[in-house]
């Protein structure tokens, strides 16, 4: 017995046990319980199964709006937060230059700012009154004061995506910089000798070799985009409980919060959560397929 503990038969299981336990307790159990709850009406002491009713209730304009907003937000953040950080990373990728260290730091600082602080400041900057900062800056150029946050879906999305760009550019630059450092200098030297232009080097060497990093950043951006909640919660905060006028800032996670926690309908909230899971899974698989992630390297 004593020998068998030390032997290869039990030790591996012992070492993975903490992970298995925490996985079962904090991931697997909640997942199963969410699936069950999505078919239930959750009432103190009297929870009961109600079939597909929670899912039927999801066919409503707010849910469509939430899906549409989350989808748009994800697409826009990916369209902006991949190319711009790549270009910036290429520009900053010369370790000898002290200026590049300064710019790296400056671009990273917004990430460290709490989303609550940033959101509150943006909310006040873009307030609707003519004397609010942005409106008063635009005034001399003949732009009429506008209500950025109330009821206008386009300006609301611009603010949300703008805030994401401001906050996450720095992080993505770090990912791409570390990707760039894995590309051998020899390739660029060889290209130089052959007379390749800067653009040619970017599109023929840098971007193809950054592909693993791009896949990674795109994948986490898909997760991040669909999981977005705090930004819209803070921009319309005080607007009592995660809502926004005309639902311009309603996201899927925001809708879970609204229904499950604000409204106390945990069953409905679980159903929204599972739909979100399915959407993110589908989008990720399509995206990874497009990038050829599942194909075998053909050498």
């Amino acid at each position, binding site marked *: 017995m004593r020998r068998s503990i030390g032997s290869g038969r039990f030790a591996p299981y012992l070492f993975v046990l903490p992970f298995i336990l925490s996985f079962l307790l904090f991931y697997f159990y909640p997942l199963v319980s969410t699936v069950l709850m999505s078919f239930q009406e959750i009432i*103190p002491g009297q929870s009961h199964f109600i079939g597909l009713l929670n899912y039927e209730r999801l066919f409503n304009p707010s849910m469509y709006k939430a899906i549409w907003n989350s989808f748009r937000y994800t697409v826009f953040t990916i369209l902006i937060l991949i190319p711009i950080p790549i270009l910036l990373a290429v520009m900053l990728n010369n370790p000898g230059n002290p200026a590049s260290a300064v710019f790296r730091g400056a671009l990273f600082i917004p990430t460290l700012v709490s989303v609550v602080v940033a959101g509150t400041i943006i909310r006040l900057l873009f307030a609707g009154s003519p004397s609010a900062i942005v409106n008063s800056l635009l005034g001399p150029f003949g732009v009429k004061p506008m209500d950025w946050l*109330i009821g206008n879906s386009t300006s609301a999305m611009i603010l949300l995506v703008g805030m994401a760009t401001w906050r996450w550019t720095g992080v993505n630059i770090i990912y791409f910089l570390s990707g760039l450092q894995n590309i051998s200098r020899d390739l660029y030297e060889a290209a130089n000798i052959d007379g390749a232009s800067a653009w040619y080097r970017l599109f023929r060497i840098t971007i193809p070799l950054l592909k693993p990093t791009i896949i990674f950043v795109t994948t986490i951006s898909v997760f991040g985009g669909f999981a977005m909640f705090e930004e819209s919660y803070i921009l319309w905060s005080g*607007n009592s*409980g995660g809502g*926004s006028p005309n639902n311009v800032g309603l996201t899927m996670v925001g809708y879970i919060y609204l229904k499950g926690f604000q409204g106390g309908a945990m069953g409905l909230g679980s159903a929204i959560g599972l739909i979100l899971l399915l959407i993110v899974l589908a989008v990720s698989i399509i995206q990874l397929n497009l990038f050829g992630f599942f194909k075998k390297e053909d050498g």
Partner: protein
Amino acid sequence: MRRLLVLVLLVATVAGFNAFAAPTKLTLWTFQPLHLDFYNAVVKVWNAQNPGKAIDLDGQAFPYADMHNKLLVAVQSGVGAPDIADIEISKFPNFLQGTIGLVPLNDVIDPFRDKFVQARLAIYAKDGINYALCFHVGATVMYYNMDIMKAAGVNIDKIDTWDDYVAAGQQVVAKTGKPMTTLEITDQWSFWPMIAEQKSDYFDKNGNVWLDNPTNIKTLQFMQDMMYKSKIAVAAPGGFHHAEQYWGAMNAGGFGSIWMPMWYMGRFTDYMPDLAGKIAIRPMPRWTKGGFRSAGMGGTGTAVLKQSQFQDLAKKFLFFAKGSKQGNIMIWQILGFDPIRWDVWSDPAMSAPNKFTEYFQNDSVFKMLLAVKDEIYPVTLTSKTSDLTDMVRNTIMVQVLQDRSKTPAQALKEAADQLRK
């Protein structure tokens, strides 16, 4: 000798225990740290008056959503609830579903039942059983900026009906160029009191969706007309009356008046200091001769949990804090709310100078409140209330008052149909 010593020690110990009977520890959850100041002050008075039943109050303030979620989970799972908890009114229906985890308070309320504003007991009751006591009536009143009223030559005591109010508003706009009032387009405190005055509501007495009734449609049309026909109202800057933008504009003397519940007095004193001495409070205008002039809005019901080991003591303490005369006076003194027992409103303590009496022009706001105490109609809350208020806040008001993409009838009907599903 030694035996004597032991005896003396023993007697001393027993006597000591009796003299310092350990206070009972009660836990209390709230979502508003200001409420804790109040409870802690009340506990001191209670302990002084009831030495045998001393309480060691362990009050904890959590963020709003956190506290209600925690409490609901504790009630659902049967463990971990505090002895006493504050529950915000829009969350309260969640706690009246299924097996109710709150202790009935009828036995402590009954001896004084007629002294309470009845509407404020009814909102926390189910099938005739009272489950909580409120902090305030939340009587909705009109706050007038008297500088603007004087400049326009408006006598606010002549304003009796909403038609008078609109006429006065047009006079204000013509003379001063300033809007008479602002309407909330992302919250419900402009709309709800107006329909409650007419005994209408979001839900009927049986809890059925009633949002799209003719009174509500007519009222929402009236609000739209205030903005676009008689042009006496504009959308509140920032969308609602708790936006920093609104406070700034109102504080700068931007608008003639506003109707909000009494608890909004604190927003004036805290966020609009430049209006000190310029604001007069009057009842809301009424819709018809003899109609109601106020509505009770918002609230926090405090309840005793069935999980408590000291239900009886908790119940008595809760009633002392929120149902006794002394407690009600402290609610006004510490929190500045209009307490739910109308028999304290005429108490001299209620007109003693404090920061509210200094700020507002009224000699005593409670004299005015006594005149409208029977003109408050209870609102009906159901488990769908929070869904419905979300719709009022996020779609109906904006669509009808801001972008006018829907008529009042369309917007109300659409929302009501969605909820009836």
